[in-house]
């Protein structure tokens, strides 16, 4: 059984039953779930807010914290962090807290209690809060935007470039591209922006769908990350995280087979607020040189 349909049902149910809140008073997301940075793919989101007071997304019980005590043999890249267990087997993790702001004495939190302050502890480029959501039932990390109140944003994702790759040959697509018959790997350099971002920064989209001849070639949904046979996989397609994105090329969208004649592919990119961009690329036969 695929995990994601179950995840979607479960999250829809839990979101309907339990009202979650953003952990900071104002929420400007500076890094989204599954953002790629070299070989690292983010497991949560990063947020900045007006004042740094961090509140739980819902009432919950503190089950783990790391206070970066100096004798720790293993350093914490998440800095000072706290993990709360909520109803519905969800866990929320608040990372990079200001070390002095968090008190481990308190065990039970309501959603109005202050857990601590956003800080700079751990591997983070400035003062911000990291938030991870873990579904214990399905043993997977969940995109926090699936359960948090909707982000209001009108910015439309940008399809910058799409290219085909075959035997180390790369071909950037125009509206109409002449092509030799064969199999090609499709890569899409796409990004999203957000209105509230304080500086020029790009974000990953939420969903990428590649159609060819009316059929879905690939659907990549950045909804969850779980471990499958020792490999981290993402979303409903269970795409290996390491194969999802290639530096310099973009998102890997599977294989397109050009059989000759007039064909086209259609790329749809959606962000989490429902804004979408579409682009159609047509192909005509390339005349072989004698």
């Amino acid at each position, binding site marked *: 059984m695929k995990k994601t349909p179950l995840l979607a049902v479960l999250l829809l149910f839990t979101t309907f039953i339990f009202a979650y809140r953003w952990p900071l008073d104002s929420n400007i997301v500076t890094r989204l779930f599954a953002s790629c940075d070299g070989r690292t793919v983010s*497991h949560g989101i990063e947020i900045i807010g007006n004042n740094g007071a961090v509140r739980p997304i819902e009432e919950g019980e503190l089950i*783990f914290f790391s206070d970066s005590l100096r004798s720790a043999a293993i350093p914490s890249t998440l800095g000072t962090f706290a993990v709360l267990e909520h109803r519905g087997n969800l866990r929320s993790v608040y990372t990079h807290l200001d070390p002095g702001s968090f008190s481990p004495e308190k065990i039970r939190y309501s959603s109005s209690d202050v857990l601590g302050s956003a800080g700079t502890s751990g591997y983070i480029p400035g003062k911000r809060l990291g938030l991870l959501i*873990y579904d214990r039932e399905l043993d997977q990390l969940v995109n926090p935007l699936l359960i948090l109140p909707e982000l209001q944003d009108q910015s439309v994702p940008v399809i910058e470039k799409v290219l085909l790759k075959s035997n180390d040959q790369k071909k950037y697509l125009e509206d109409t591209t002449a092509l030799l018959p064969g199999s090609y790997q499709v890569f899409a350099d796409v990004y999203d922006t957000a209105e509230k971002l304080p500086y020029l920064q790009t974000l990953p989209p939420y969903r990428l769908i590649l159609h060819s001849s009316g059929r879905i070639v690939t659907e990549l949904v950045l909804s969850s990350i779980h471990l499958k046979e020792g490999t981290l996989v993402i979303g409903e397609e269970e795409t290996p995280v390491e194969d999802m994105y290639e530096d310099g090329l973009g998102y890997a969208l599977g294989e397109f087979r050009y059989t000759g004649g007039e064909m086209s592919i259609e790329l749809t990119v959606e962000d989490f607020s429902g804004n979408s961009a579409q682009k159609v690329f047509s192909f005509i036969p390339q005349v072989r040189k004698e």
Partner: protein
Amino acid sequence: MLYFFLFPVQLGKEIIIKKDWALPILPILPIDEIEVRNRLAQEDDGREAFHSDDIFGVVDWEGNLLYRDSVSYGIALSDRFFINYGALPDRQVIQTQDGRIHSVVQEKGYPFFLQNRLFILDPNGSAVCEYDIPTKKLIWERKFASIITDIAVSSKTQGKGITVVALLNGTQFVVNPQGKTIDVLAGDDFGIPVSFACALSDSAEHIAVISGLDPQILRLYDYDKNVCTLIKEWKLESSFRRKILLQFSDSDKYLMFEQTNGLSILELSTGEIMSYDVAGRVIDILPGMTEQGLLGFSFLGSTGEVEFAFILPGKKQVFTLKSGSSSFFFRTRGKEIMIGLDKWIVKFNMDTG
């Protein structure tokens, strides 16, 4: 702290400790680089890397300060190398103990040494990799969909030993030297599944794990020929919600673990647990035993002062030394004890009274 420098301290009826030397680690005295390099070239196991607050360095048991520098953001120390890293390292600069650059590893995250093996924790806190220092090559890497809460390696299997990785989701992965999963340990925790600690004995024949909340459970496994077998489990009285200190003693004799009121010691041969109460939170447990058979640990007292404690397993007494200091560094070797106190390192000798 002055008390330490001036007077011998009696630990119970039998053992007296006397100060041998005290060394300032503040940058007051210049270090003779040529002298230091000579010493580093000569001695191999007679020195200790130390870290005390924002200063780290290398000192030998004779009282010579061989290297000293300020910590950038974090410091990883081994018997031969160190990595002094900033808050956002995208590569790891490995330096020898005289400060020379040995090699650079292109890997993001925070480095740490366990039994002189180099590991790097990724920025998500949920992936770990091991590098071979001489070749700078990646040996193995494991990524998880859960935060890593603890990692354990054994000391007598350097370079080829297994690794135990404990996760926030309550499981523990036993990984072979190539990074392949040998076994996944996941006890039937009645309450909330969380891994709080894991430990591996010297010989890698025993694995210990503390996991779960309400109740917290200690499990002891035998490890042999790629098979882990649960030997026994104990329900603990503690309900810590953070990493718990858990440590086998040298020679696989005892398993020491932090409890609410102090330290507990499990004698592996009998399965008997003895508890040693102290007024504070245990912050370090030494694996080595002194010549007198003492086990050492340190704890943070209610006043924020570090205290050092020694116990003779099997006897109820706890011998404690107040440091008057909030920073610490603690090592033993035979009859010798080396303690870091704020900006000093002090060495003591133990004598039988």
